[in-house]
Each structure stands twice: as C-alpha cells, then as structure tokens.
C-alpha cells in the first residue's frame, strides 16, 4: 500500500489525518482513544491563559440536516478550553510521552500582547509537543475579547503575533486562519511574512443555523437568546477548498505548507484538499458525527486510491490540482459540451426536465413514455441536469470533438484554445499578435 507517512513542517505522523483543535481533542481521555483508533495526530483544543474561560450551560451546537437527517452543517458557540492551563499541559505531556509517533500540536489563543505569548510558549514546549497552532479563527465569543478571528481579520496583527511566536519558540508555528474575511490571501501572506511555518484553514464560518419559529429565538437558544456561532461540517467544504487553492496558487505564498480543514468527512474529501495543496488535513465534524473510527475508512480509502493511481507517497499527490486552478478569463471558450442522458440508467423522474425547462435553457424534451432527450440546439452544457439527477452517471457532459458543428450556434468547434482575453466581445481584449 502507498506510504501515508506525513512530514508537515517537520511534524511527523503515520498518516496525514489529524483531529482539529475542537471538543474531540479537549482532554487526555479523548486523545488517547483517538490515537488508539488510528488518528495520525491531533491539534489539542485551544489553550488560553488562566483564569480559564467558562462556557454556556445550555446548548452549544446548532445543525443543518440533509435527507435522512444527515448532518451537513454544524455550528458551535463553544469557546476555547474551559479547564485550567496546568491540567491541559500535564495531560498533553503524558499523552505525547506514550504516543511519540503521533503529531501533537497545541492550539493557542492568548491576548494580543507579546508578554502573553512569551509566557505560554515555553510551557507548551516543555510538554514535548511537536508544534503550536495560533488560533486566529474562532468567530464567536473570544473575538468579542479581541482574540480569535478579531486577530485573523487584521493581517498586520497576524504578522505581528506570528513574529513574536517565532522569536520565542523553537517549535514550528502554524497560523490558523479565519474564513470570515473578503480575501484569504492577505492573512495568509501576513502569516508567512511574520515567519510562520504554515497556515491551517479554514476555521469556522460565522453563522446562524436556524430560528425557532415558536419562540423566535436563534438556535442554539440560551434562555431565549442566540449568538452567532462558527459553522463547519460538509457544508463548508467548498468554501475551504477554494481558500486553500487561493493560497496554494498565490504568487507570494505558492508552495508554502498548508494544513487543510473544513468539512473533511471521507478519504475523498481529504484527497481533494491535498490535491489542492494541503500537506496534512484536519478533521472535526466527521469525528463528532460518527466517532473516532471514521479515520480507518479515511486511511484505507486514501491508500487504495493512491495505489490505483500509482501514487507512492503523499508528496506525489499534494498540490497536483493546483496548476489546474485558474481564473475564469483563461477558461477555454472553444470547449463545447452537450448533456447526454443514458436511457438505460434513467429512472424517468423528470427532474432534469423540470430544472432545465423551468430554470435553464429549455434544452430537454419530454417525449411520450417519459423519455427525456437533450436538445443539442438548445443545450449550453450548464450541468444543472447532472446536478439534479438522482442517479449518478446517468447524465454526463460530453465534449463535441473539434471539427463538429455545434447545433446551438451553427459554428464548427475549433481545435485551438481561445479564452476571454482574446474574445472580440471583450473591450479589453488583446489583439492577436
């Protein structure tokens, strides 16, 4: 089987699957069991300065469900660890001593002054931990106190704190970024400018998951009131993938280490993050939904996929998709596709028809006997029919070969690439040279 061993900024783990800093990594009992289940590493739940913070005593989580009550999105208003610093440090040391081959990264969040950081870093170093992760991400609670995403939303602060940390510890420093910002490249650049070894992202997205329509309180409701929380789980994965890719292809940060986080639920999700440049991945919601054992599926699945693809080690897959992430203006406008419906697989639900007829291009015909056929002279290959079809693989997009005539435009499909930058409708088009 493929070699899944991971070396991320010098932090070694037997596989790239780490548990993210969150409730699953809050204490020794959990982390020991996570390691027994096979997790390659953990980022210990964020430590702060004493006196330790307190949490609400009502519900901390809200959720969004899909069909069959599958948990798609989870939102939380839990703060950083609510246990004394000394307790956490003692447990971290004990676990690391017994599990030397696993990655032990400690998440930190202290006030934005150098003295605070200078005081906590040696305490962590003394535990034997492999690295620290600076929590500049949590969008709720702590941000009201000038920490978490309040720092992550100001690139200058990120750079400043990263620099303090690098100056005060020999441990690798990972900066965890908040997605609650317009352009993720700015905080990432700041982190690396400050000397950070890596960034990890995304932290949770500011969110209100729902409203109780009887009490008119946001959920989760604490005595009739709600506060925005941080959203995570499968629902945020596309947001996270894009942010990871943006950093991976940015001229200033290209090739710098990224630990990917955000809705990773299966080996497939993990592989996608890694293809977009993540050197390790962090998981929380999947473990919180299904328990620690899911890592075994992730390890087996990633290994199987790598074996099938002839990828021997993680370095063979990390960043492989990055060169294929581009700007819209460079997409090939001479790539012409048409939807194709496999009549053998079709179960005749007609959802493709309803979607296309009501909301798209009226490019699917409903024939007698509930036979659905694509009208090539109307189809713009938008892919909506593929997306709404309940049967995987029933509708596909097939490229029209160069030389064929597109029945919609009446034009022959050219073989050469052509994009918006040279398109005659583009007022900014560059003249062919």
């Amino acid at each position: 089987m493929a070699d899944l061993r991971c070396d991320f900024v010098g932090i070694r783990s037997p596989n790239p699957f780490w548990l993210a800093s969150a409730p699953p990594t809050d204490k020794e009992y959990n982390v020991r069991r996570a390691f027994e289940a096979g997790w390659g590493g953990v980022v210990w739940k964020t430590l702060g300065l004493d006196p330790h913070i307190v949490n609400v005593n009502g519900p901390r989580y809200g959720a969004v469900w899909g069909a069959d009550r599958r948990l798609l999105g989870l939102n939380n208003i839990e703060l950083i660890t609510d246990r004394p610093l000394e307790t956490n440090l003692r447990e971290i040391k004990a676990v690391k001593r017994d599990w030397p081959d696993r990655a032990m990264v400690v998440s930190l969040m202290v006030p934005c002054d150098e003295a605070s950081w200078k005081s906590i870093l040696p305490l962590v170093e003394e535990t034997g931990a492999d690295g620290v992760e600076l929590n500049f991400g949590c969008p709720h609670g702590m941000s009201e106190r000038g920490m978490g995403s309040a720092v992550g939303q100001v690139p200058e602060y990120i750079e400043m704190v990263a620099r303090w940390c690098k100056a005060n510890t020999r441990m690798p420093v990972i900066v965890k970024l908040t997605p609650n910002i317009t352009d993720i490249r700015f905080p990432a650049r700041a982190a690396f400018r400050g000397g950070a070894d890596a960034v990890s992202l995304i932290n949770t997205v500011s969110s209100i998951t729902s409203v109780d329509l009887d009490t008119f309180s946001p959920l989760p409701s604490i005595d009739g009131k709600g506060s925005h929380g941080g959203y995570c789980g499968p629902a945020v994965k596309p947001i996270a993938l894009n942010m990871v890719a943006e950093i991976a292809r940015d001229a200033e940060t290209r090739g710098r280490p990224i630990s990917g986080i955000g809705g990773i639920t299966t080996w497939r999700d993990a592989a996608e993050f890694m293809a977009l440049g993540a050197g390790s991945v962090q998981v929380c919601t999947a473990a919180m939904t299904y328990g620690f054992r899911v890592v075994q599926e992730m390890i087996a699945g990633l290994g199987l996929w790598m074996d099938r693809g002839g990828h021997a080690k993680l370095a063979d897959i990390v960043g492989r998709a990055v060169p294929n992430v581009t700007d819209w203006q460079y997409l090939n406008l001479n790539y012409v596709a048409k939807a194709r419906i496999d009549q053998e697989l079709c179960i005749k639900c007609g959802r493709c028809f309803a979607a296309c007829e009501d909301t798209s291009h009226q490019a699917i015909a409903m024939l007698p006997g509930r036979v659905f056929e694509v009208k090539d002279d109307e189809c713009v290959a938008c892919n909506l029919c593929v997306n709404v079809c309940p049967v995987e693989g029933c509708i596909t997009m097939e490229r029209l070969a160069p030389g064929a005539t597109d029945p919609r435009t009446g034009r022959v499909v050219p073989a050469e690439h052509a994009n918006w930058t040279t398109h005659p409708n583009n007022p900014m088009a560059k003249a062919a040279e």
Partner: protein
Amino acid sequence: MKPSLAGEGPRASGIVAGRLPAEAIARNFSDIAPRFDDHEAMVAADRCYFCHDAPCVAACPTSIDIPMFIREIATGAAESAARTIFTQNILGGICARVCPTETLCEEACVREAAEGRPVEIGRLQRYATDTLVARGGHPFARAAATGRRVAVVGAGPSGLACAHRLAMLGHDVTIYDARPKAGGLNEYGIAAYKAPGGFAQAEFDWLLGIGGIEVRHGVALGRDLTLETLRADHDAVFLGVGLAGVNALGIEGEDKAGVRPAVEFIAELRQAADLGALPVGRRVVVIGGGMTAIDAAVQAKLLGAEDVTIVYRRGRDRMGASEYEQDLALSRGVRIVTGAVPLRAIGDGALAEVEFAHVREGEAGLEATGETFRLAADQVFKAIGQRLGPLPSRLALAGGKIAVEGPGRTSLPGVWAGGDCAAGGEDLTVTAVAEGRDAAMDIHAALCA
C-alpha cells in the same frame, strides 16, 4: 402455543367458533400496517424525488398530488399534506389503508424502477390523513347554499365522495342507504386488519363535518323508494349502489349448508363484536381469484381454520388480487391452487368435499384436462364476482352494469352513477371515489347551468 389435539381448536370438526384463544385472535386481527410514527414518516418522506409530472400521480385514480403531499410531510406540515390529499380524495384515509398501492402509485414510483423499493406512499398518506383527523375539525368549508337538492343512493365510497363534494359546493344532499351503517364496502367489505378500530364509521362521521348532508339508513332503492320518486323530489340523483348480487357457481350441491358467498362471511366478520364467537370451518375452500377471495381466505385462517385453500381457474398472474395480496395469503398459510374449476359439492347432508376439474388455457378459452381432484371441506366461500342487484328496468345497462357516459351520466336525464355498479372502472375503492367526485362536479355543472 401447544399443538392442538385432534378435535380441538383448529382441528375441531365442522363450522365452529373459538378455534383460537382470544389473545391470538386479537393479535391476528390487529392493524396490518400500523401508522408511521413521526420519525418513520420523515425517513420515508425523504426518499421522494419530487418527480416532474410524477408517474405516481398519473397512476392514482384520484390524481392525488403525491410528491407535493410528501414534501409537505417532509417539511413538518402533515396537516397541509392531508389537505392536499383530501382535495382530490375525501376518502384518502381508507384509501391509504386499502388501495392496492403496489399496482397503482407505488408500482409507478421511479424508485421502484431504480431500486425495486418504492416510496411508501400509502403509509405516508395514512400518516398525513390520520394526523389531520386526529387534530379534529373538518378541513373544508361549505360554499353558500344553492338551494339545490341531490339524492345519493348508497353510502359507499362513490356515494360518500359524491355527497361530500356536492355538499361542499353548497348543495343539500340526502344519502339513502340500505344497510344500518354507512360506509358500504369500507364497513362491510375489506379485511378487518386493514381498517381496525371502527375506522370506517369514524371516517364517515368526520366526512359529514362538511355539513349539508342528511343520511337515511335502512332505505333500499326498489324496496323502500323508487327512482321516479327520487327524481321527482330532487334536482339530481346519484346511484352508488354497488353490487348487491353474488355470482353463483352453478354446480351440484351449491345449496348445501356451508356453501356461502365470501362477501357475507367478510361482512359478518366486520360486524362481529367478538371474533372469537364467529364460527369458521376446519377445512375451508375459497373459490375465486380476486381481493374478496384473499380477504375471506386469510381471515378464515386468522380465525383458526386448519386448512384454507383458494382455488382459481386460471394462473396466478391472472388473479384479480395483486401479487402482494397473494403473498400475504401464502405467508399466512393459505394454499393457492390454480387452473381448476369446481364440479360439485359433495356430502351426505353436511358438506364434506368439493370436486374440481383441472383446466388449461385453450384456443377457445378454458378447457378441461380430464383430470379431477377433491378437497376436503366443511366450508366453501364463493368469491367469483358480484353483480348488480335488482334495479329500475329503465336504466340502460352495459356488460351487466349501469351504462354511463363521461363523468357517470346514465341513460336517464338527471341520473348519474358511479362506483362498482357503473360500467367501466376497476372496482376499487379509489376508483369509486374518483367516479363519485367527478359525477358530483358534473352534477354541479348541470345544476348551475
């Protein structure tokens, strides 16, 4: 349960009561498909794809907007779902229980094509309708009174659907029914385990909540009133009298004690206060291949008959009862013999045996193979179909039923008909409801013209 000794319980000879202990009877006749709880309904509703121009709707004789009501269930609005159902089918509650969904909506479900497991539409319909009815009140309001009067003969599915729709449109309706209780086959037919707990009467009472419907029980057309009187006293008449006659076997010995129509047995069973007191044979033979045959056979078995055999003249694929119903009978221990017709009922005094001839499909219909056999029987239920009871001779007939055109118009002006008594249709509860409803709309149009 201990094996029965010869001469006791299921093995007691003759037609006797008390073959099974009370607990076994209660268990046997409990709700065959209990109502979904909220969680089950959510899981089942999640599976609906909300198809475009959905095949299940096309397969429903009353054209209930099934994807819409399932979506309403899935979003926690079961009462809205029920309203969607009742708008098309006011007897959606009983139909959810007795419809052969496996040959209607659920057979058409695209998930049947995809996975061989359709969305459980019937049970979801029951969940929705039961939820609304349990909340109390009636979901529809009556239109302003029109002053028009309509007679509905027969309080079965077609008559009730017709009466409700007419009343809702503001007409005054009088229902005349020959039996002491309303409901028709919902009350007197149908296997007891499909609608236990007095459901048919509760549904009838709920249906009357629309107002404007008067019911006269124990009044039979031809005996207590004439069609001419009805026509004279009302602006329109709807006939939903069902099929009161039972087809005879036409064999020697048919008049023996123990040989009786299956529908009688089913009605008696439905009306029995104590099923343990209901006599049934030790060896029961049911002749026929439709739903009535299945309902009689299964219930005879559930009452404790030792051997129950259905004998049908053609193959199982030609039986009127669906495969699901056939499987139900087989799972309850009923034997199904096909390709045989009865020749005579034999017995010195009491019935002892029935002799059958094997037949096969030939060029000119069924032909005897020359082989015969006998089945021991102390009770025989005839279930080879029903026919019209006595009717006014002026009504034109077609194929032994009242001839109708369009939405139930008979040969007589101002007289409509629907349900089993009318020609065409499939003799299903749900078809009867559709015909009653559509006739009501046509009557309404005629009265308002």
